[in-house]
């Protein structure tokens, strides 16, 4: 093997430059880049929808788009961001690239299946975007029945098919990760020597295989109900809409952990590296990941406090929701302890990671407000909820995703990005983010409901701030697109380990060769064997 890997090593990028060589590749690293391109595209499409919404909400009267059009924009925004960005972003881009590298494997267990996943992702995307171009959907990303199954006269079925297909893409990726992590670790790499990023992706994959089929089947039932006008969710037909909500949230609450667990993994890698200290309480961090994954399956009913489920169910779900806070708090505590007395350096990835921790905390704490039954009755379906989940998902997952992209960029591309631009963008994003979403907590508290395209004059100021923040945020998101692409050509050439980081992925050239390692590495030390620099 690897006969062509001489001193002048030939990287995976040099394996062929034609479009065909990319579209038929089985190399996990190339597939990761395919994902990166498509996911970035979706991120900006979803972002465009958000821009229209914030533009509409910049002024009090609904004067830019009609309420019907506005419904279509928030649905498009939600559907694209959840299923085509947040869920696949870190696992499919960074996980694909790094899981084999970090465990010392030559590739994932099923490379063909991996490529098939990408095609499924793309196909699902085509269906969804097609449906949006053909006139859009107005149900919201939650497809609540019976509105979605009986009343909405928009392209619900096409979007459901799109989501169904992309669901299979995540199931296949998850199976690939689970098998690879179980069976293909390098000699000496025991479970408790694995990087936390691997733990996080492992737990995420387990959630994916357990939750996604439920969503797929549930949405199929909605589609059948719609086509044949018979169903199990429409009360007029003897069905029960609450059943739909239970099934939907049984997937969709764990799905929020699909979004945030990998982000926690990324943050852990970055924080230990840039504080030059082993992660504090490694085992607890691993257990906390498992804990979040397990409890995440038991709390779905907190989305249904006002739905008419029984009061006792509401109390149970409220209690269990508080429990999720414990492992999350353990993680925040351990990151802080890792930073304590570390030799911290503030490179761009670190800025993103610290931003992640702060915003995640803010989102988590406001989650506790929502998990309290009585408070939720006041706050539900207001902008408070919008702010809460944007802090977690956008502030959490997107920050970590960008941090990870910067951190592993030299490994992926073999080039360094311009550090000052990286730091600048991170700060712009952080400021823009808070300006956008913090006022929404206040708006929600004052009673502004979600999903409306106009509001009373009194709320003008806060909404104006929020829209202005969105503009800043947009600039922040577009910046990396430019300087990262620029660096591909003009960036400084990187050596194999520019951050002096630990972990197997740094022990192979940047960019790595086709089979990842010239010879299978043997692991002799614990994860994160950093030693603090004495000053």
């Amino acid at each position, binding site marked *: 093997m690897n006969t062509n890997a001489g001193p002048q090593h030939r990287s995976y990028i040099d394996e062929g430059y034609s479009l065909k060589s990319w579209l038929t590749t089985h190399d996990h690293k190339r597939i990761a880049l395919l994902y990166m391109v498509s996911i970035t595209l979706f991120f900006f499409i979803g972002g465009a929808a958000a821009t229209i919404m914030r533009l509409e909400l910049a002024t009090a009267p609904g004067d830019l788009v009609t309420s019907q059009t506005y419904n279509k924009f928030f649905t498009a925004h939600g559907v694209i961001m959840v299923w085509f960005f947040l869920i696949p972003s870190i696992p499919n881009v960074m996980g694909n690239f790094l899981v084999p590298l970090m465990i010392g494997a030559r590739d994932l*267990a099923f490379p063909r299946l991996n490529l098939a996943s990408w095609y499924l992702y793309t196909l699902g995307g085509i269906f969804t975007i097609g449906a949006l171009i053909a006139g859009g959907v107005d149900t919201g990303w939650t497809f609540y029945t019976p509105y979605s199954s009986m009343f909405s006269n928009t392209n619900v079925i096409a979007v459901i098919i799109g989501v169904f297909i992309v669901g299979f893409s995540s199931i296949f990726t998850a199976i690939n990760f689970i*098998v690879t992590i179980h069976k293909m670790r390098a000699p000496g790499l025991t479970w408790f020597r694995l990087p936390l990023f691997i733990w996080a992706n492992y737990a995420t994959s387990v959630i994916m295989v357990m939750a996604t*089929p439920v969503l797929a*089947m549930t949405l199929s039932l909605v589609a*059948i109900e719609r086509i044949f*006008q018979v169903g199990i969710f429409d009360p007029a037909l*003897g069905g029960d809409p609450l059943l739909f909500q239970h099934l939907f949230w049984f997937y969709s609450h764990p799905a929020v952990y699909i979004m945030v667990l990998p982000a926690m993994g990324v943050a852990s890698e970055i924080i230990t590296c840039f504080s030059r200290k082993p992660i504090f309480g490694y085992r607890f961090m691993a257990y906390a990941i498992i804990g979040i994954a397990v409890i995440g399956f038991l709390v779905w009913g907190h989305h249904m406090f006002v739905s008419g489920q029984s009061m006792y169910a509401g109390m149970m779900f409220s209690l269990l929701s508080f429990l999720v806070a414990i492992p999350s708090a353990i993680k925040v505590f351990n990151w802080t302890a890792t930073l304590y007395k570390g030799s911290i350096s503030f490179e761009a990835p670190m800025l993103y990671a610290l931003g992640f921790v702060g915003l995640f905390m803010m989102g988590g704490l406001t989650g506790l407000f929502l998990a309290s039954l009585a408070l939720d009755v006041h706050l539900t379906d207001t902008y408070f909820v919008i702010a809460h989940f944007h802090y977690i998902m956008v502030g959490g997952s997107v920050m970590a995703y960008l941090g990870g992209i910067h951190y592993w960029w030299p490994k992926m591309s073999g080039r360094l990005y311009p550090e000052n631009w990286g730091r600048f963008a991170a700060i712009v994003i952080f400021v823009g983010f808070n300006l956008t979403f913090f006022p929404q907590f206040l708006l929600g508290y004052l009673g502004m409901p979600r999903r409306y395209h106009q509001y009373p004059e009194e709320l003008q100021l806060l909404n104006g701030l929020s829209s202005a923040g969105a503009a800043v945020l947009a600039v922040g998101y577009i910046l990396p697109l430019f300087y990262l692409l620029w660096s591909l050509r003009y960036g400084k050439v990187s050596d194999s380990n520019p951050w002096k980081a630990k972990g197997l992925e740094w022990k192979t050239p940047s960019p790595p060769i086709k089979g990842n390692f010239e010879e299978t590495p043997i692991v002799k030390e614990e994860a994160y064997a950093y030693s603090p620099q004495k000053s």
Partner: protein
Amino acid sequence: MAEQFDDPKQEHEASTLGMWVFLGTEILFFGVLFAGYIVYRFIYPEAFAEASRHTNIVLGTINTALLLTSSLTMALAVRSIQLGKNRLTAGLLLLTSLLGMIFIGIKGFEYYEEYKKQLVPGLNFTYEGPHVPQVRLFFYLYFVMTGVHALHLIIGSLAAMTIAVMAWRKSFSARYFTPVELTGLYWHFVDIIWIFLYPFLYLVSRA
């Protein structure tokens, strides 16, 4: 052996684990339908009992017997390939696949009868008697559940046939038979699902 693996043993273990995880997702897939069924069975016990009397228990029972037999022939196929008998394996796999196809044929006939009795929701459902919406709900679940099961069985039969051809061409040996084994796992899974569907849909009121 594929190049990402170190040795055939690792490849075998990885493929087997992959199949098990996949079957786990399949269980959850059906789980939604079972959950829906159980909820409504609990809410509308009488209507469901009544509706189930309109399914064809004779054909359902014959089909159950067919599937159990096919599970046996499949198990024998896996056994015989472990002994390296490619030709025998091919025969057993073909038989398994054939039994699956007969099942599908009978199921199709059942569907046809139900169509004539105007029991297909969304196409021609008309029902005289109490609990009309609930009976319709039962038949909706009946068609979705057996339909999804039949789809799995068709895929299984095609897979068994493909593997049979490979066995006939001596693609396997006593040391390499992962595909036969995995097809077997899948087949047994599809059978087990039916073992639950049969009492749920045919025996509700007759138990």
